[in-house]
C-alpha cells in the first residue's frame, strides 16, 4: 500500500467541455502534493470528484489501495477526505466552535448541544497543530487567515487524513502564507497527507514534495519538486516557455490624466477610510498602489470610479472636475474599471457572456438602436473580446457568466474594460487567482494600454505585481499616502517598510 489516494484515468465531461480527460493522480502518505494547472485546466473538477461532489464518467478511485465509489461529500468524509474550498463555507455570525461542529454536533443527553466539550476538543486540536484559533470567537470578527484555519480545523475535527486545500493562499497576506506553510508542515508531521491546488509556482517550490501538472484536462506529468525548476513547471503547465519578467520600456509620462486633491472618503462603516489623499497619474504611465489589504485601497478606487461619494477634496480627469458626477458619466468620460470582486461587481452572473460584455455600453449604438438591443452586434463584439483575450467557456458568447471558471471570468472583464480603450484604467487586483500564463498576458496588456498613451492606476496586494508592472508606486497605510517612489529605484524591503507606515524621511 504505497498510496493513500489514487485517482486513475479519470474522465469527466460537462456539456460541451471535457473537464478531465484521463487524469491520474497518486498521493503518498505524509506528503504535500501540489496539483498545478492553469485556470480551467480541470483542477477543481478533479478535486470535486475526489470529494464526491461530481461523479467521474470513467476511471477509478482507490483509497489505501481499495477501490471506492464516492457518491457524495459525506462518503468522502467517512473515507477521511476533507476539503477547504476556495470560498469558505462558514456561517458568519456563528462562533468558530459552532461552525466546526455543525453537522456532527456533540450532544449531552442526546438532545442538548454540548458546545463546551466541543470547544475544548477544538482548543486541543488547535494547539496540537499550531493553528492558534480561538474557539469562541465569531467568524465575522476574525481575519480571513484565521477563517481558513477554522476550515482546516473543521476537517481535523472530522478526523480527515487527506486534506485538499483549494487555492489556499489567494486570500492571504505574505505573512499568513508563511504561517500556512508551517501549519502544513505540522500536519504532515502528524501523518496527514495534503493535496495543494494552486498555480503559484513559488509556493509549490516552497511547500510541496511532489507536483502533478495538468493542462486542458490531461495529466502532463508528476515531478519531484526538489529536482524541478519553476520555469520547468511553468512550461509544463502552459505548454510553452513563460517569462516572469514584465517586458516594458521606460515610461514617457505625458499630461496629467487623473488628479486627486486632498481626497477624504468615508468607508461603509462611516469611518474615515481615506485621509487627505493627493495623487497624480499621467498619460503613458502605470501608477501602482501598494498597501496591506484594507488600508483604504477600495475606498480610493470607489471614490475615483464614482461608486462612493467623496467627503471632501477634488477628483479631476483630464483637467475636468468629476468629483460629483455619476458613474455612467465617468465611464463616458473615459474611466475603465477592473473591479476587485469580479463576481460581486464585475459580472451579472445570470447574464450570458455576450450580455456581460456590453454591460457599460449596451445603451449605445451599435449595440442598441432606439432602445432596442441589437443582438447581432452584441454577439460580434463579444466574440471579438472572447477571441482576443482567450476567454474559454463551454458555449462561447452564449454561455452564462456563472458557468465560467474564475480565471476566465476575470479575463472577460479585463477584455471588456481594455476593449473600451479608457484614458484611465483602474485595475484592482487584475490577476487575482490567475495562472502564470494569463498573468503574463494581462501584464502585457496593461503595459500596452499604457504605451497607447493612457493612464493606468494599478491596485494590488501582490507586491511582486506592483513592483514589476508599475512605473511609479504610491504606498498607502491606514488611509494615508505614506510616500511615492519610482519602481525602478526601490525594492521589496523599502516598500514593505512603507506599507507598515514608516515614512521615507523618517528613516533617513
Amino acid at each position, binding site marked *: 500500500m504505497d498510496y493513500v489516494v489514487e485517482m486513475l484515468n479519470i474522465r469527466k465531461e460537462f456539456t460541451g467541455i471535457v473537464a478531465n480527460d484521463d487524469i491520474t493522480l497518486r498521493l503518498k502518505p505524509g506528503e504535500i502534493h501540489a496539483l498545478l494547472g492553469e485556470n480551467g485546466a480541470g483542477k477543481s473538477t478533479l478535486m470535486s470528484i475526489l470529494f464526491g461532489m461530481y461523479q467521474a464518467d470513467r476511471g477509478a478511485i482507490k483509497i489505501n489501495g481499495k477501490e471506492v465509489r464516492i457518491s457524495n461529500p459525506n462518503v468522502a468524509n467517512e473515507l*477521511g477526505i476533507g476539503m477547504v474550498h476556495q470560498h469558505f463555507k462558514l456561517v458568519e455570525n456563528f462562533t468558530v466552535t459552532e461552525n466546526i461542529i455543525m453537522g456532527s454536533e456533540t450532544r449531552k443527553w442526546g438532545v442538548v448541544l454540548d458546545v463546551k466539550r466541543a470547544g475544548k476538543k477544538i482548543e486541543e486540536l488547535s494547539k496540537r497543530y499550531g493553528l492558534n484559533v480561538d474557539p469562541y470567537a465569531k467568524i465575522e470578527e476574525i481575519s480571513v487567515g484565521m477563517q481558513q484555519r477554522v476550515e482546516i480545523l473543521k476537517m481535523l475535527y472530522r478526523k480527515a487524513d487527506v486534506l485538499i486545500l483549494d487555492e489556499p493562499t489567494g486570500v492571504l497576506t505574505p505573512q499568513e502564507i508563511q504561517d500556512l506553510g508551517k501549519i502544513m508542515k505540522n500536519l504532515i508531521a502528524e501523518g496527514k497527507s495534503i493535496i495543494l491546488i494552486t498555480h503559484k509556482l513559488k509556493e509549490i517550490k516552497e511547500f510541496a514534495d511532489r507536483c502533478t501538472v495538468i493542462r486542458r484536462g490531461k495529466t502532463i506529468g508528476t515531478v519531484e519538486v526538489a529536482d524541478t525548476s519553476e520555469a520547468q513547471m511553468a512550461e509544463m503547465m502552459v505548454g510553452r516557455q513563460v517569462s516572469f519578467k514584465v517586458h516594458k520600456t521606460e515610461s514617457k509620462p505625458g499630461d496629467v490624466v487623473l488628479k486627486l486633491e486632498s481626497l477624504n472618503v468615508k468607508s461603509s462603516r462611516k469611518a474615515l477610510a481615506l485621509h487627505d489623499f493627493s495623487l497624480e497619474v499621467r498619460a503613458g504611465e502605470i501608477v501602482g498602489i501598494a498597501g496591506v489589504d484594507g488600508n483604504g485601497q477600495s475606498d480610493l478606487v470607489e471614490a475615483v470610479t464614482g461608486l462612493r461619494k467623496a467627503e471632501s477634496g477634488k477628483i479631476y480627469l483630464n483637467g475636468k472636475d468629476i468629483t460629483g458626477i455619476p458613474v455612467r458619466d465617468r465611464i463616458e468620460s473615459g474611466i475603465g474599471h477592473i473591479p476587485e470582486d469580479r463576481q460581486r461587481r464585475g459580472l451579472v452572473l445570470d447574464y450570458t457572456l455576450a450580455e456581460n460584455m456590453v454591460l457599460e455600453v449596451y445603451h449605445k449604438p451599435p449595440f442598441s438602436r432606439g432602445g432596442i438591443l441589437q443582438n447581432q452586434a452584441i454577439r460580434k463584439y463579444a466574440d471579438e473580446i472572447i477571441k482576443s483575450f482567450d476567454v474559454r467557456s463551454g458555449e462561447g458568447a452564449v454561455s452564462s457568466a456563472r458557468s465560467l471558471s474564475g480565471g476566465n471570468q476575470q479575463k472577460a472583464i479585463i477584455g471588456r474594460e481594455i476593449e473600451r480603450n479608457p484614458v484611465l484604467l483602474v485595475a484592482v487586483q487584475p490577476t487575482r487567482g490567475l495562472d502564470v500564463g494569463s498573468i503574463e498576458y494581462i501584464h502585457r496588456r496593461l503595459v500596452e494600454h499604457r504605451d497607447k498613451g493612457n493612464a493606468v492606476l494599478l491596485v494590488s496586494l501582490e507586491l511582486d505585481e506592483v513592483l514589476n508592472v508599475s512605473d511609479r508606486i504610491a504606498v498607502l497605510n491606514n488611509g494615508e499616502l505614506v510616500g511615492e517612489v519610482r519602481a525602478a529605484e526601490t525594492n521589496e524591503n523599502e516598500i514593505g517598510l512603507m506599507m507598515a507606515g514608516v515614512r521615507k524621511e523618517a528613516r533617513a
Partner: protein
Amino acid sequence: MNNRIVISLCAVVFGLLAGAVLMLATGHNAGSGYSYLFEGGLKNAERIGNTLATATPLILSGLSVAFAFRTGLFNIGVAGQLLVGGFCASVVGLGLDLPKVLLLPVMLIVGAAGGALWAVVPGLLKARFNVHEVVSSIMMNWVGFWTVYYGVQSLIKNPSSETESKQLPEAATLKAAWLTDLFHGSYINLGLLVAVVIVLVIAFIINKTTFGYELKAVGHNRDAAEYAGIAVNRSIVYSMAISGAIAGLGGVVMYAGNASNIQIGILPSQGFDGIAVSLLGANNPFGVLLSAIFFGLLYSGRGFMNAMTDIPPEIADSIIAIIIYFSATSILIERLLRRFKRRRANAKIAAVQEGKVKKSYVDNDR
C-alpha cells in the same frame, strides 16, 4: 428554458396524479372526476369562453408578479393593485360620458395608473430606505382594500345595495357582443385581447430592449448594475410601477370585463393566484399565458365536476395547491431529471465501471 417547460409539465402531471389519489382516497372515481373537470372547462364554445375569461385576470396578475420577479422584486401586493386599478377605472367609467371607443382606452390607462401608483409606493420605499417590498406591498394591499371600501361607498355606491358599486354602463365595459356570440353567450370579453397584447409587450420589453436589460441587470446583481452606471434606484421604482400597472389593467379586466361592478370587502384572490401562475409559468410571459389558461381551466371546470359528481370542489383547489408546491420546488424535479439522464448516459458507457458502493472505512492508525 426547455428544461423549465419540462419541469412545469412535470409539476402539472404530479399535481393531477396527486389529485387522483385524493379522489380515490375519498372514495370517488378519479376518471370520471377528471373527465367532468375538463369537460366543465372545455365541453363547448361557451365553456371554453368562460375558461378563457376566468384566465384573463390571472394572465395579468401572473404577468405582474413575473415581471417583478424577473427584475429581482417580489410584488406580493398584486391583490391591492388589482382592486385600486379596477376602482379607478370604474370611477372614470361611471363619471365620463364618452363613446365606447374612447372611454375604454381611458379606463385602461387610468386603471393602469392606479395600479402603478399603488406599487410605486413600495418601490420608492425600497429605493430610498431599503424597506423590503414584500412587507410594504402587503401593507399596501390593506390600504387599498380600505380605500376602495370607503371610495366605493362615497363615490360610486349602488343605490340598491350597500356592498357594491353601481353597474357600469354598456359603453364602459369590455364586453363585446361579437365575442359573446362567438362563444355562444360566454362572459368572455375584450380583456383577453388586452391581456394577450400586454403579454407580447412585456415579453418584448424584457427580452429585446435596453430598458429590460437594465431592469434585469439590477434584479440579478445590484452591485454590478451600479458598477456599470445603471441608475439602480430608478430601475427599482420603474420595475414596481410597471408591475403595478399590469396588475391595474388586470383590475380593469376583472371589474369592467368579467364583472361590471365592484363588491367591497373582498381582496381579490386573483392577486395571490398570480404568484402561482408566475411560478408555474417560470416567470416567462408566454409561460404565464399558458399557466393562467390552465388555472382558468381548473377553476371553471371545478363547478361542473361538483355538479355532476359528489366530488367536493376543494379537490380542484387542492390540485392547484399541489401543482404550486411542485413548481415551487422545481429543484427537486430538476434533480430527478438529471438523475434520470445520468442513468441513461451511464448505461450507454458500457465501459469499465466503478466498483460497488462501499462505505468501507480507512483505518485511522496508518
